[in-house]
């Protein structure tokens, strides 16, 4: 029972992370300008990586209640699994710190370099152009 519960929770976390990854990738391709693209990549990437790593950390405990001959053996297994889980959680904390910072640094570099954000006028112009093209056809 315990094993199934852990597997379901960690599987749900990993699948959720993959869904957010897909969203980030689609946003990276579909969004119109640099800033919105970075927004989608930064947010989606961070959240999905953290979710996947937490799912993996949780999955370390999936066969915690396997057959153990003594209490010492149980704690021996638990220690190893806990160590791996702590390491994976530490990676996710590091990503939580660094990924938004790198996104911010890229955004700032783009802003300093004079990247034009996508505005309402751009959208109107796009629509007009599309309308003209479809009218021409």
């Amino acid at each position: 029972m315990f094993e199934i519960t852990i597997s379901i929770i960690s599987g749900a976390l990993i699948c959720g992370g993959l869904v957010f990854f897909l969203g980030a990738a689609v946003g990276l391709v579909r969004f119109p300008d640099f800033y919105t693209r970075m927004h989608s990549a930064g947010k989606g990437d961070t959240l999905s990586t953290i979710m996947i790593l937490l799912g993996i950390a949780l999955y370390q405990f999936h066969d915690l209640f396997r057959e153990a001959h003594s209490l010492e053996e149980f704690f021996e297994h638990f220690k190893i699994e806990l160590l791996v889980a702590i390491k994976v959680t530490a990676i996710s904390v590091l990503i939580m710190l660094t990924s938004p910072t790198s996104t911010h640094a890229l955004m700032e570099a783009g802003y300093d370099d004079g990247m034009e954000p996508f505005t309402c006028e751009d959208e109107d112009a796009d629509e007009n152009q599309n309308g003209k093209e479809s009218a021409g056809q």
Partner: protein
Amino acid sequence: MKGLALFAVAFTGALLLYATGDFPDWGSLDSPANGGELSTHYIKEVRKETEVPNIVTAVLADYRGFDTMFETVVVFVAGIAIIAVLRDFGNGSRGYPPALANNLPEEPDLIVTQTCNLVIPVLQIFALYVLAHGHHSPGGGFQGGVMLGASYILIALANGVEAAMKILSERKILLMAATGILIYSGTGLVCLLLGENFLDYHVLSRILPTDPIMARSHAMLFVETGVAFTVTAVMFSIYANLATRGTLKGGL
């Protein structure tokens, strides 16, 4: 000329592809890496002879110690060569053309600086862990040294090269790089002075308070520390010289 180059590349590539047919399969029992006398000895005896669980570290720092020593010397020479080629002592006396764009903001960015201040201590501790834990897990002098050098590069990226140069000045860089080689070859020389071959660590048990087997294990740590010193200094010096056109001022 381009056609000739393409022909040369295609010919060499075809030759290499032809040669891969003679390779043993991945993980095959007949391959020299699995069946040879030497590797069988390593796989079977390393634990008994040196008490090091990670065979790669034992082979790198003990059995093939001479090889690794000169690898470290190569890294050192590369660092010295970079300094010799790029270092610019005057103001533009080398006559390089000016940098492409220099629209960098004067102030370092607050968010980036703060995050780097948070991350760098963790990174340096992890680098030392990688260096010292190389006996038990993947890692060792080269990896730990590169990570330690990367932490200084991170300081230079966040706060500017000059801020990093205050922590690790050029004098310290050269001293560190040379000290690494000195530690490595000094360990070998002590073995020589104690009446054994160069880099034959087990004789160090006479001056270390351990038995010959653990002496080999500890001597590997000394040697890896030496490697880490050199690699740290050289990595940072390469970055600092390349990012500032050798002036070690301003720059990226």
